[in-house]
């Protein structure tokens, strides 16, 4: 998303951070993107159910505010590494849903030309260095990207998204330590949705909050309600400022919830229907953000309807684009293993 707006009026002085920081147009665009993420994943799920997509996918429905909030203060040059639950990050960082659908459908027009699929979705041009099938796999890579930024003095900030499961991987600890030692412009964002597959953080993680781990690496550890866009965006904004100032990394723990199971094969045996229902009805990030926008006068029902309608069209077009795109040739299976030498 674009940088901060100067259009802060006195009337907004008591409003939460983002309503002071960004223009109405920017905020409406955030809602648009949150809907785009939600509908994209619903569309992907529907296509999967219809047998148009193979493999599996990990849906982030319920976590849209986290993805959008973190990416809000990032510029197009800034970079992210993402996770297996990365569709939201990809869209938040600026990807087009039609090329994402195409990738899910395994088509040559997809972001990875059909070689990566959901779990490796990337959009390098927009700074998304890629989702990752390995839990914690992207964290050291983000640190490396931040090292590049520092060495090449590009001013880029790198965000590493990961889940609560990754905080128990060695890579997490090694990477945070190095980033802190070298004061690299990287932000570690743990989207804690409460479960690493089926194992709750309470059963898997010794500390109460994953942000508590930050103390071990001498960096700020910030906890935010990941379902409230403004809270997430505010924490991200501060972390980006700190990173750009050369003060080093931040660990943000964005507490959120995934409405869907871990993947398409999840039978939901580790959490109750009541728990899921509570998060969906009372803490849905899109509903919460929509209500605030309406309450603070940034949008009306008509505007919301217009966004929903536009998103529906975009999703339908995207799926159509994916369906009609060509598949790769079998003869090209060996492509991209190595760089093609001239």
């Amino acid at each position, binding site marked *: 998303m674009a940088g901060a707006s100067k259009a802060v009026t006195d009337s907004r002085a008591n409003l939460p951070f983002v309503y002071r920081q960004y223009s109405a147009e920017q905020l409406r665009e955030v809602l648009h993107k949150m809907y785009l993420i939600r509908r994209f994943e619903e569309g992907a799920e529907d296509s999967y159910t219809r047998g148009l997509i193979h493999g599996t996918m990990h849906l982030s429905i319920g976590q849209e505010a986290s993805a959008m909030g973190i990416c809000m203060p990032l510029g197009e040059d800034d*970079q992210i*590494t993402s996770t297996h639950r990365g569709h939201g990050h990809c869209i938040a960082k600026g990807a087009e849903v039609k090329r994402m659908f195409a990738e899910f459908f395994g088509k040559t027009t*997809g*972001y*990875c*030309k*059909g*070689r*990566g699929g959901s779990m*490796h979705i*990337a959009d*390098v041009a927009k700074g998304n*260095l*890629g989702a*990752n*099938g*390995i839990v914690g*796999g992207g*964290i*050291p*890579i*983000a*640190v*490396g*990207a*931040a*090292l*590049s*930024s520092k*060495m*090449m003095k590009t001013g880029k900030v790198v965000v590493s998204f990961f889940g609560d499961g990754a905080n128990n991987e*060695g*890579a997490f*600890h*090694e*990477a945070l*330590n*190095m980033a802190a*030692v*070298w004061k690299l412009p990287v932000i570690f964002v743990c989207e804690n949705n409460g479960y690493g597959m089926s194992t709750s953080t309470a059963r898997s993680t010794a500390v109460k909050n994953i942000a508590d781990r930050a103390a071990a690496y001498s960096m700020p550890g910030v906890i935010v309600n990941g379902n409230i866009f403004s809270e997430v965006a505010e924490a991200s904004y501060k972390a980006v400022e700190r990173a750009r100032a050369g003060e080093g990394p931040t660990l943000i723990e964005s507490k959120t919830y995934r409405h869907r199971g871990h993947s398409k094969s999840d039978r939901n045996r580790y959490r109750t229907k009541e728990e899921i229902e509570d998060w969906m009805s009372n803490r849905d990030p899109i509903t919460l953000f929509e209500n605030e926008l309406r309450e603070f006068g940034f949008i009306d029902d008509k505007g919301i309807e217009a966004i929903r309608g536009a998103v529906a069209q975009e999703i339908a077009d995207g799926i159509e684009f994916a369906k009609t795109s060509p598949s790769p040739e079998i003869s090209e299976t060996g*492509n*991209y*293993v*190595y*760089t*093609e030498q001239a």
Partner: protein
Amino acid sequence: MDAMVRELSYAQAIQEAMAIAMDMDERVFLMGEDIGVYGGAFQVTGDLVERYGTERVIDTPISELGGAGVAVGAALTGMRPIFEFQFSDFATLAMEQIVNQAAKMRFMLGGEVSVPVVMRFPAGSGTGAAAQHSQSLEAWLGHVPGLKVIQPATPYDAKGMLLAAVADPDPVMIFEHKLLYKMKGPVPEGYYTVPIGKADIRREGRDLTIVATSIMVQKALDAAATLEAEGIDVEVVDLRTIRPMDKQTVIDSVKKTSRLMCVYEAVKTLGIGAEVSAMIAESEAFDYLDAPIVRLGGAETPIPYNPELEKATVPQVPDIIAAARDLVKGVR
């Protein structure tokens, strides 16, 4: 040109190559454990930190996985890192980043990125470092599409192949035998490259092809000198790169000599020897074989501490001589 050729050790040749690479390209930098003021566990980086500073000769924490990942991430975003593992055995700690990330990133992303990382692995036995510091794991990485895996056997190749690796857009894994570091040989000054993926015929012969890697190349040459006195004319092929393998050179050599022996230090089973043997069996050279293929590889044990046991676990010159003699004289 001769005036520019000096005798350098293998370690000096690598150090010179890294210095040249850093001089030529500011994106090139070094990472690794104790490669700065300490000079690296085997003094390969030496005093480079004094010449290039701590910003370009970076001591990492003891974090092989994280360090490798940082190198991958830096390579992915425009830098040209050369990452030194203190011992090749520690690749086991970093396998995730090497195998899942570095090797596959370009492919997974449909060719949108490349990962021009170079990783150096001091490998092999003979130093009394026992089981966890003496392994030869090159075949592990050789099994992974997306990686290039090389084993220079001389100071000349060490420099030229490292420079080729730095220039290569894909991840290149260099396995350097620790006992080679002190080996001296002619090395030209300045920049030159030795191509990755091209084997070298170190010695021409008529009776037997020995395909050897790394330190075994020299052992094979020593064996060949002895065998020559017995009238056995050995051709020694230095494989140099195990992925992508230079099949044609080996095929041509076997077609000429009709006999093949593979000599390598790594554990014999499921290794380079199996690959070379099978490749020959599948090739047109099969119909030129006049004797069974023989593999001489490491014993099916961890590397032991006791020096005599340690020697016994890997092929030595007398083993090569005996096996070659049996093969050519028709005992096998």
